[in-house]
């Protein structure tokens, strides 16, 4: 595991174990030994596989012209998950939805973790006015509900970058969701990392690095960052759960891209087609169950990681 080796490297570099309890071998054993961690990993492996190669499992994404069934059909042998109001196979939509939802979730997580770690490390290490300023800023974002902020930011960002723009083949409508989630959810990560950095910077190995003339930037990169890597990994996994959750909600409200049916977008179509009132449960259950399973798996895994990687959480038990 890269996590374990990264920390071990730091131990060698500083000549002493800086309180980090992780050893490469014990880590995966301890994580897999926990039921919640194991369940989380298994669910994620399944969905990760579906997301990597949806076409392999269910063929290309069906659209209006390539539909394979009659509209709003209950599950049959040919369509085990039924069809939507356009006659698209629900199994096909749900599997392809894994790719879309999880890609957005992953990109949003990367942005969130980058901003959150940077702010957390700088605020904690530099301290003083920079710390105060950054923490007030994070207070602001903590108080503001992400979804509500996203509602007004999304149309504006869309207008600024244009709705036809693309990045890596992803339409700007989806990019907006990524940017909005990233910009509005870094505050929790920043807080968690900062509190760890505050205690780290009082440690002996930081003093030693200073004494031999290392600059602030060097210490933050080479000494602080490797030691908060544990926390960053656990936070990233938990952030992924939130990101998938938020994407589903935003797409459901109507900020998604109809041509890229994420699970939230499919639920939006189901709502628009009146599926709940018609009793078309097969239109709702597959995407809804997928969201719940993925969010739950990431939450389980994130909590398990937090317990296994975080020395503070360990001593609490």
């Amino acid at each position, binding site marked *: 595991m890269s996590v374990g080796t990264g920390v071990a490297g730091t131990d060698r570099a500083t000549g002493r174990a800086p309180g980090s309890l992780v050893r490469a071998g014990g880590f995966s054993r301890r994580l897999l030994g926990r039921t919640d961690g194991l369940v989380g990993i298994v669910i994620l492996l399944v969905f990760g596989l579906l997301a990597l190669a949806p076409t392999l499992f269910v063929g290309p994404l069906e659209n209006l012209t390539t539909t394979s069934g009659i509209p709003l059909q209950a599950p049959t042998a040919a369509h085990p998950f039924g069809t939507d109001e356009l006659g698209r196979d629900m199994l096909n939509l749900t599997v392809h939805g894994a790719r879309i939802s999880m890609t957005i979730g992953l990109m949003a997580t990367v942005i969130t973790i980058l901003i959150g770690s940077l702010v957390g490390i700088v605020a904690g290490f530099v301290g003083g006015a920079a710390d105060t300023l950054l923490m007030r800023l994070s207070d602001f974002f903590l*108080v503001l509900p992400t979804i*509500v902020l996203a509602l007004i930011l999304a149309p504006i960002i869309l207008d600024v970058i244009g709705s036809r723009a693309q990045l890596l083949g992803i339409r700007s409508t989806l990019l907006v969701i990524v940017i909005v989630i990233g910009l509005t959810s870094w505050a929790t990560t920043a807080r968690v990392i900062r509190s760890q950095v505050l205690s780290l910077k009082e440690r002996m190995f930081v003093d030693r690095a200073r004494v031999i003339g290392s600059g602030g930037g060097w210490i933050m990169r080479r000494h602080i960052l490797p030691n908060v890597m544990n926390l960053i990994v656990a936070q990233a996994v938990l952030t992924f759960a939130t990101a998938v959750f938020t994407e589903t909600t935003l797409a459901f409200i*109507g900020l998604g891209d109809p041509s890229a049916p994420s699970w939230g977008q499919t639920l939006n179509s189901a709502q628009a087609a009146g599926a709940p009132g018609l009793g078309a449960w097969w239109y709702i259950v597959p995407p809804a169950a997928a969201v719940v399973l993925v969010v739950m798996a990431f939450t389980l895994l994130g909590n398990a990681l937090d317990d296994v990687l975080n020395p503070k959480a360990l001593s609490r038990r």
Partner: protein
Amino acid sequence: MSGRYIARKLVQALVTIVAIVLLNFVLFRMMPGSPERASKNPHLTPEIVAANRVKWGLDKPLIPDQLINYVESTAAGDLGYSIKYRGQPVVEVVVDAAGPTVLLIGLGEAVAIVVGLWLGARSGWRRGGTIDRVGNALSLVFYSMPYFVIGMPLIIVFAAGLGWFPTSGMTTPGGNKTPVEAIVDLGRHLVLPLTAVALGLIGAYSILMRSSIVETRSEDYITTARAKGLPDARILRSHAFPNALLPMVTLIAINLGYVVAGAITAEIVFNWPGLGTLTVQALDARDYPLLQAIFLLIAVSVVIANFGADLVYGYLDPRVRA
């Protein structure tokens, strides 16, 4: 509670509200359809554009004149006019929709606080017991579900399938109803959305309360109470529960913003005529003034709720008053 504590929290809340208003000011200038953009119409002569700029105050510098102007009208409750609702002031539109939302979320919170805190306390007190295992698993499932994901199956089963409750709306239209009939009608419409909101919240509150009670359980005063020979139920009720409740006060207040934002998705599913349904209409019509008013209302309510929680917390826990 010391005056200094209250003053510090009040200043923090006011700074946040000022920041929200400033953000709104900036966003207003970036929005599609802003006056600057409207003036780019090639059919307008430069004279008309210049006259309009004077009329709208755009000839004055952005800071401070336009900003002061904006803050003044915002403080006076003038947030502009709705596009979708034919020029009705957005404040009126938003206030009309706030009532149903407050009813739904207020009742949902009340149910969830009672049930969630009870469930979490019982789970954490007997860790590993039946209530803990079942309750914890259910809480995690509901915690992972957006409100609308909880709501949709409820409609399928209890409205479309069994026909026990109406599928959508807040009242049955038409007919002269006696006050009693009207309340029963409202109640029947309220059951499913309320269940969706409450279930989502119970998950979150029960998980948080569980970990809070687990931490409280290892405190010295619990050991003391046990040593005194108090019955288990009494220790939970009078010693552990009140102390475990402390962090929950803040958590419930901080969560309020997310609750409002999440609950609006439940409104969409049930077509409940509150802020959520209004938000979707505003989004569909690209009604930016309306969206901003909704944002301002929710954001400021959340800040005020947080301030209230700080005061309650300071009152309940003498250690933070310093």
